């Protein structure tokens, strides 16, 4: 959380890949690496969340430490000697990427392909029979979709839904070990859970396991083209908080709404209205490029042509509760 005038922090000096770096006390190794220009892969790290350090792709070598340490959460200490691409660090990053790539679908994880190539990771080497996380896609509401085949169990959605942001506690990690999954109680449909459809879990999901229904449908239909989308940041018109919305627009239609993480008030979090209640701004009977076959279900509040009033938008999702 940004405090207007933080007390001056002392600087600590450490060595990253042989070069001295100075960072304010309390910074992580990752912060120090950013300053030093190193590009360390991260997945479970989130700029708006307390690191869970579960994915272990960001491991670096610190002199004197028996094991590698997670750059995303280990605090920089004076005199630390950090190696970000030592053989050990690169080896462990490679294997972690292979383990992930062999067990879950990384196709929608930004930069995954690039990292796999960079580290020479070959997820296929574990063979055809390597166990995978196999779960059917969960489409149980009209606002967002859960495709846990792609889930790397980074805990970010759980933390965002729970005590770090939303305080709804609709989802949790259930089970143990390789069988662990993100789940509601007794795997109930989201519509029976405590979910309030803020979409804040979707906002932080690093893999695309959680995605807005609009995006999911367009991807299914093969019409999702990020290169043709524009992003416009504006202010939500629903209430006086004044959250920032970033409207992702393709072919004159809003295809999803995110929120800037550096907003000092909301840190990327929104409520159901700002996140999903945008149809009213584009209900003009426009010819547009409405050939896009993305809108299918009757309740899809992003479908052009159907004009649900605001209240309906939330009702559709939550069965009347907000």
């Amino acid at each position: 959380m940004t405090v207007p005038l933080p007390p001056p922090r002392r600087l600590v000096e450490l060595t990253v890949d042989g070069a001295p770096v100075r960072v304010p006390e309390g910074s992580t190794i990752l912060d120090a690496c950013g300053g030093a220009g190193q590009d360390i892969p991260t997945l479970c790290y989130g700029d708006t969340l307390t690191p869970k350090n579960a994915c272990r792709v960001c491991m670096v070598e610190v002199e004197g430490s028996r094991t590698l340490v997670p750059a995303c959460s280990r605090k920089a200490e004076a005199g630390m000697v950090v190696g970000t691409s030592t053989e050990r660090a690169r080896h462990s990053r490679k294997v972690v990427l292979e383990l992930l790539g062999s067990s879950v679908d990384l196709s929608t994880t930004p930069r995954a392909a690039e990292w796999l190539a960079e580290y020479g990771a070959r997820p296929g080497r574990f063979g055809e029979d390597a166990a995978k996380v196999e779960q059917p896609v969960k489409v149980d509401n009209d606002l967002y979709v859960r495709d846990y085949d792609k889930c790397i169990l980074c805990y970010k959605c759980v933390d965002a839904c729970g005590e770090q942001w939303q305080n709804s506690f609709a989802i949790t990690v259930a089970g143990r070990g390789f069988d662990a999954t993100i789940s509601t109680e007794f795997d109930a449909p989201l519509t029976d859970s405590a979910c309030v459809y803020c979409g804040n879990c979707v906002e932080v999901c690093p893999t695309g396991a959680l995605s807005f229904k609009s995006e999911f449908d367009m991807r299914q239909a093969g019409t999702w083209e990020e290169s043709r989308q524009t992003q416009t940041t504006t202010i939500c018109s629903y209430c006086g908080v004044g959250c920032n919305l970033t409207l992702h627009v393709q072919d004159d239609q809003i295809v999803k709404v995110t929120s800037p993480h550096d907003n000092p008030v909301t840190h990327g979090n929104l409520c159901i209205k700002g996140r999903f209640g945008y149809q009213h701004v584009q209900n003009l009977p426009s010819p547009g490029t409405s050939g896009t076959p993305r809108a299918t279900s009757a309740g899809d509040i992003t479908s052009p042509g159907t004009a649900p009033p605001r209240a309906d938008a939330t009702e559709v999702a939550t069965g009347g509760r907000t």
Partner: protein
Amino acid sequence: MDLRFRDAEPTDDERAAVDAVLGPPPSSWHGGLRTEDDLHFAAGGREARDQRNLLLPALHAVNDRVGWISEGALDYICRRLTVPPAEAYGVASFYSLLSLKPRPARVLHVCTDLACQARGAQEVRRHVQERLGPPGTSWTPSPCLGLCERAPAALALEAGETPKSTVYAPALPDGGPASGTRAGGRAAGGANAGDTDSAAGQANVQLHDPQTERPDGPATGGARGPGGDGGQGARILLGREEPSAASAVPQAGDPSLVLLRRVGAVDPASLDDYRAAGGYAALRRAFELGPLGVVQEVTESGLVGRGGAAFPAGRKWAAVASRPARPHYLVCNADESEPGTFKDRVLMEGDPYALVEAMTIAGYATGCAKGYLYIRAEYPRATARMRHAIATAHARGLLGEDILGQGFAFDIEIRRGAGAYICGEETAIFNSIEGYRGEPRSKPPFPVDRGLFGMPTVVNNVETLANVLPILLNGAAAYARTGTEGSTGTKLFCVSGGVARPGVYELPFGATLRELLALAGGPPADLRAVLLGGAAGAFVRPDELDIPLTFEGTRAAGATLGSGVVLVLDGSVDLAGILVRIAEFFRDESCGQCVPCRVGTVRQEEALHRLSRAPKAEDLTLLREVGQAMRDASICGLGQTAWNAVESAIDRLGAFPLPSAPLTASVGAGSAASPAPSLVRAASPAAPVALPVPSPPEAS
């Protein structure tokens, strides 16, 4: 937090079970009947949330009463404690002894772990499967039950108003010992009928169809536990046929024993016996020394932790004692789940007051008013004995507000695990007690700074604490004269597998493995290997029996003492099967938090299955690479050590020799069949970074 529930209601039994732990619901906000007041005042909130740590005891209560936890029961618990149902579901689904699906009240847990596998567990498993069908509801394969000296073991847990448990050890397939050798298997009581007697006494229940057998069937003698006496959670009646704890101590009565000296010599239920045998003299001494004096004695004694990480106890105590934040907490780690380990069970069953006294001293020295004894749920008899001892000590002023009139207040609360090896990890134990999933926390911060409930906490193993008594009674200097410079005092070893007299042995540090095995009846003629330290330990070869059993000695030999496991594997044991079981154990017990361990343990198991069919160089390379990443990048000791034993089997025992690859020469040609494979340590061509010494879990 705004809780949302579905429509499920608890049954009367479920409600009663929960109320027995939490008391009657104070208002309709907690799931009680609605009163006029409830319409005007909301209740719950922080006060209820502060009771989150009762989540696991409440889940246990329902599981013990009904056998499983229904949605209605879970919701009721959540209303009572203001816990979101999703979170409670996440917690309940973490533990293998809790069921969220209907199942019979009685479930048989058949140990298929290492020591049992070395003594015919497959036979028992096959037999049970023939009778009860595929595992799942009425029976289930189980990790080590801590009854390894009487392997193969099984444990039946039966839910009900008074939950029951029955131990079958050794678990003999129908037809008794004679059938034990059929199918070439080395079933218990078969080849070793004689040792069974000496180890476990005569009074063993045969494994009849567990569905029809009465757990409280006719007594054939043997000890009956003092019985559970109230407290939160379940009351558990004990099977009557279990031999006394002393039968697990072949040296019982030997005057040189220190930690085990009272086991078998005193009635574990009698405080008077305990006092007559020198009990509570150490606590008096502690009061004379004062807290700082006690910490100093423990530091000077050189005592290091016996739970596996070998961290100096005095340093831990001094750190907690010096922390200004209050309250401080003490946690005694009695989760003993490392396959092949049963020493803590024997100490708790045979000399429970010693642990009560030792915890009191630890609390006094480190400024704790409260100690938690976290004990695995697979130990019903040890739990009952400890409960009884704590209650008696309380009644006699040895626990409570003003202990021995010294103005020191200290209490002990028992918390039961629920089937999760990982909860023995020192930070996972905190999460488990606090009512969260038993996932390890990342360190730093270390427990001495932020442990249980975020407060400075001492975590010590049962055996570590037991050592505090002789340290105070005889003085640090006298204590340190036993053992070696780096490993002072005596050590308990859990000897199991192919020896004539399996059991817990106490020897001064520095004795050799050969000497230990001699006490246990000598190594078998066809000794194949000894697994030291448990699933997270390492194998040593028959030509390495002169390893000194000290922390430094085993470390120098590339092994570890771990939790004191000494599992003897003879020629009849299928080594590949043991390795697959080790891999399966880690796969089952990984908490799933971090990728290297969650997926790495699965890949390790898959590769071992392939290797045991046909050794291939790629699979060995793959094991090494994955193993290295698990060791380097896992959060906790589980993942960090999950490859140790497999690595040592490949490198030291020459497991999985390749048919004709160039590697063969160094890995040990044909050694699968040879009892003493090549001495040459395999050059590890594929290992990117060689870290030959298996490291113990990170110390605090």
